[in-house]
């Protein structure tokens, strides 16, 4: 019988009888990319689409995000879905601070990316004003396919990230620019 299970392809390497040698970077990237635990920070409409993404039809679990981690400490990717008001911004920041490295952020939807249609006194004009963002998913709200695509884009990023990146001066500078 044909095996329909889709396996992750191994990274480039040298294989011989009984051994396979490759770079540590690639292995770590591979492992990280395929077990991203999301922390859904769902505030409004996009959160409902995220529910659809997690549910049976679209099933984000196929991409290694089976376990939705509601505790920031065990989460790898923070998915900010929905409008972040100025009242909410400090809380978002706190959640980000509580996450342990390595951590990634996806801004799902127009509101999280830029404030969207809500150009008002009470709405934060994009979450990149308070925390660094890795992937932006456009749409108001984005379709579940787009959210899944955003996660896949992030997987690419994660796969190719150097294990040393989080210690690099550039990264420290980035965090410092956000006062983190």
């Amino acid at each position, binding site marked *: 019988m044909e095996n329909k299970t889709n396996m992750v392809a191994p990274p480039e390497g040298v294989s011989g009888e009984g051994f396979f040698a490759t770079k540590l970077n690639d292995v770590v990237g591979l492992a990280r990319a395929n077990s991203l635990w999301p922390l*859904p*920070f*769902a*505030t*409004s*409409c996009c*959160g*409902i*689409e995220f*529910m*659809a993404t997690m*549910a*049976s*039809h679209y099933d984000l679990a196929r991409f290694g995000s089976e376990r*939705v981690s*509601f505790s920031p400490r065990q989460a790898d990717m923070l998915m900010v879905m*929905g*409008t*972040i*008001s100025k*009242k*909410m911004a400090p*809380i978002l920041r706190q*959640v980000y601070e509580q996450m342990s490295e390595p951590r990634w952020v996806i801004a799902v939807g127009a509101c999280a990316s830029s404030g969207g*249609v*809500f150009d*008002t*006194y*009470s*709405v934060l004009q994009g979450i990149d004003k308070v925390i660094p963002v890795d992937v932006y998913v456009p749409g*108001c*709200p984005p*379709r579940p396919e787009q959210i899944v695509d955003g996660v896949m884009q992030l997987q690419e990023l994660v796969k190719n990230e150097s294990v040393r990146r989080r210690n690099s001066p550039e990264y420290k500078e980035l965090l410092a620019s956000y006062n983190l």
Partner: protein
Amino acid sequence: MSDLLLPPEHRYAKVIEERRNEDGSELSVLNLGPTHPATHGIFQNILLMDGERILDAEPTIGYIHRAFEKIAENRPFYQINVLTDRMNYCSSPINNMAWWMTVEKLLNIEVPKRAQYLRVIVMELARIADHLICNSILGVDTGAYTGFLYVFQFREKIYEIYEEICGARLTTNMGRIGGFERDWSPEAFKKLETFLHDFPIAWKEFENLFERNRIFIDRTVDVGPISAEKAMQYGFTGPNLRAAGIDYDVRKATPYSSYEDFDFDVPVGKSGDTYDRFCVRNAEVWESLKIIRQALDKLPEGAYHADVPDYYLPPKEDVYHNMESLIYHFKIVMGEVPVPVDEIYHAVEGGNGELGFYLISDGSRTPYRLKMRRPCYIYYQAYTEMIKGGMLSDAIVILSSLNVIAGELDA
């Protein structure tokens, strides 16, 4: 020493101190929210706990306050529909239609029968989608994930129908002043028929899974009950009020969009507890299906929008080739349309209760003041009282059975 987290002048501090002196026991303070996973949306409650029991709660809201009413004062009538989408995003079409009906009431526009029936169909679909989310999530909160995964497939089917009608899934921006932007495609009706055939089977199974389930009954019966008088005092409307035993339904009380043509019942509960709220929503889904069936069977032929060139955008190809259409297009877009000076209140039965728009028009292209009566905002006030004396785990169940939508709560 959890009281150290509070400022010393906080009202909890005194209670904790008194209790400590009385019998030496320690009360604790628990911060529930605003990003707690079990609260769907962002609500913060600072709870005063005696072990597992909640003694007091202090709610804070406004975490996604987006200033809808302020934006509405700065946008022309046809752009406000975008805001209504994002209010109760579980049932956007109801909000859309409610807004168009308000504007039509202001402008004295008579909508053709076909458009009215189509509106009824899509509003009832939205109600099903709304109740489906609420009830399946209530299942998740009591530990039954299966029901959610099962019926959510049918929510996708509803989305597909929306997509056929207007092209969007969640924030539909459906309809125009006077009717719809286009007639429904045969594909939409086909999908609707398939839905009407398949969904009742699944919903029956969903009901069977829960309504006689021992665990579910133990978790919900007599949890967070509210009496009819209290519910009225707190301004409850919609399924939550009907669960307490009052049969007030805007669709029956002041029929709009031809609801008087359809035969349907208003299900009511008795004790107003979580179980009753669940059952009332379940029963309403059946009534909604009944209404959709009748509307489809009786759907008249005719125009899908009113003949109001002053407010209804002409077809795009006419705009390019026809002088008059171009003028109308220009006038509508630039806001040079006649608007009467008046005050209007129009209410519909939204997913959560009486959704009203109080519109003050000063004759300009934007509302002078638009006050949205958001049912969630009004009945969430009772939450504090409902959870007092209960267990912490019950507070979560009560919240999801009330179906408080953050977007509607904070506007």
